[in-house]
């Protein structure tokens, strides 16, 4: 049986990869995928906790997170398409009309 610690360490590693990807990559789609990675890292730890605590709350929250993440993806991509029509780029460094 896999110990709880392994799951938590895995979740931390995935979350950190997500944060790192969000902060260093310049492509909006990749940044967006990094956020999804962070959310799924949370899901891993929630399900692990839920299993080891023998409690259903964690599972319920995971279902909510998955469905909210789907809605978030729809809205995010819609905004990206609306932006892309005005300025065809996905590079975050070129989204710079407003600064300071």
């Amino acid at each position: 049986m896999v110990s709880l610690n392994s799951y938590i360490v895995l979740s931390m590693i995935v979350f950190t990869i997500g944060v790192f990807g969000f902060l260093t990559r310049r492509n909006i789609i990749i940044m967006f995928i990094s956020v999804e990675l962070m959310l799924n890292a949370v899901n891993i730890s929630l399900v692990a906790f839920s299993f080891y605590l023998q409690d259903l709350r964690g599972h319920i929250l995971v279902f909510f997170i998955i469905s909210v993440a789907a809605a978030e993806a729809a809205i995010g991509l819609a905004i990206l398409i609306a932006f892309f029509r005005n300025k065809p780029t996905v590079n975050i460094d070129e989204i710079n009309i407003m600064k300071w």
Partner: protein
Amino acid sequence: MEFQFPNLGPITPELIMTGIALFILMADLFIKKKEALAFLGIIGTVIVVYYTLVTTAGTTFGGMFVSDGYSTFFKLLFLINLILTILISVKYITVEKMNLGEYYAFILFSTLGMMIMASARDLILIYLGLELMAMSTYILAAFIRNDIKSTEAAMKYFMLGAFSSAFLLYGIAMIYGTTGTTELKSIATYISKNGLIGNKTLILSIIFFVVSFGFKIAAVPFHMWAPDVYEGAPTSITAFMSVGPKAAGFSIIGRVFYEAFGSFHVEWSNILLPLSILTMVIGNVIAISQTNIKRMLAYSSIAHAGYALLGVITGTPEGIASTMNYLMIYAFMNIGAFSIVIMLRKEGFSGVNIEDYKGLAKNHPLTSAMMLIFMFSLTGIPPTAGFIGKFYVFMEAINAGYIIPVIIAVIMSVISAYFYLRIVMYMYMQDPEQEITLTTSPAMGLALIITTAGTLIIGVLPSFLVDFAKRSIVGIF
């Protein structure tokens, strides 16, 4: 196991709000005149205000959802914000050529999210309310979809908002793993029963919460999205989100940190205090160099979040009451200032440059007088409401022993006078460079009357609001 139908009494305002928002979404298909939808929205909101006031206190859905004085106060704030936003939008969205019915539905949904946040007593519900509020606001920020600035603002807001909610979730997961529950009251009992005060995992989750809520209230160093989003978004939405989501963020900070982490007061106040000071300093100092009034008001709203945080940091019931008081006052004066900005907007003329205000008093004395009141109030000059708000927050902070932060806050208010009063100076002491015509409507006039009256009446007779804030938290914190 028998299924028990939950008691719907405490959740009535939210249910009615959902119904009205969905009804507007449907009615939009048949109604050609979108002003009718605005009217429908206002009528609906008034009904929700009534139900918010008469709803009996109590919990439902197994303690997840609570209706109490604290939530009622914040709900009234959100509903006032909603009514004022609808009033200032009616004319503006035709000028911006975004006269779509969904606009009203989304502000209602966003307010619904805030109301759920104010009533949530469970981390799951907090997350859901926060996402409902945030996602509706992302869409509203991008509402002028042919405008590159508006879509860029929404893009930035969306990316950082999604990033920050991931932090909130990780914090929730850590708390769930440590305490085995997501209910705020049970977390507090678990902590005190098992002697977890000072537990490192819980401190980590508090830090994650501060990051996430800091994004929502635009506290430095999590403020980077605010100026860009406030500048790019439609001005009515800027007014809406500089008050609503910020107040909702504060309601959650109060709920989570007071109710669940009351025993961690030393830890979280030590994290929030530097944040509050940085927020006041950076917000006010950078606002000085701004030439765009929406951007200037964005930095000013960052600075105001810093003042309001001072009340929360004290950890006393009076402290949170003073913050609630401050947020209510801030709603009136800030929406007032933004409605003047909206009035200057007309087709082919943005009116967001500070230079545009030169000599406004010559041709439009009444508008200028109102702007003067709002600017004085934002600075904190008596007899306006802004003074009362600051006075109570600073007094509670001093009572709790935070003297140095209050001294910094007062110095920062003096600095803020520079950029607020510069607008007054431009209006009254300079000659007009161009002919400015105002875009007015009866709805806008009503909004201006409400905000001006609110700013002045609370400034002269503050006791009813202060008492209301204090009464609403009795027995909760």
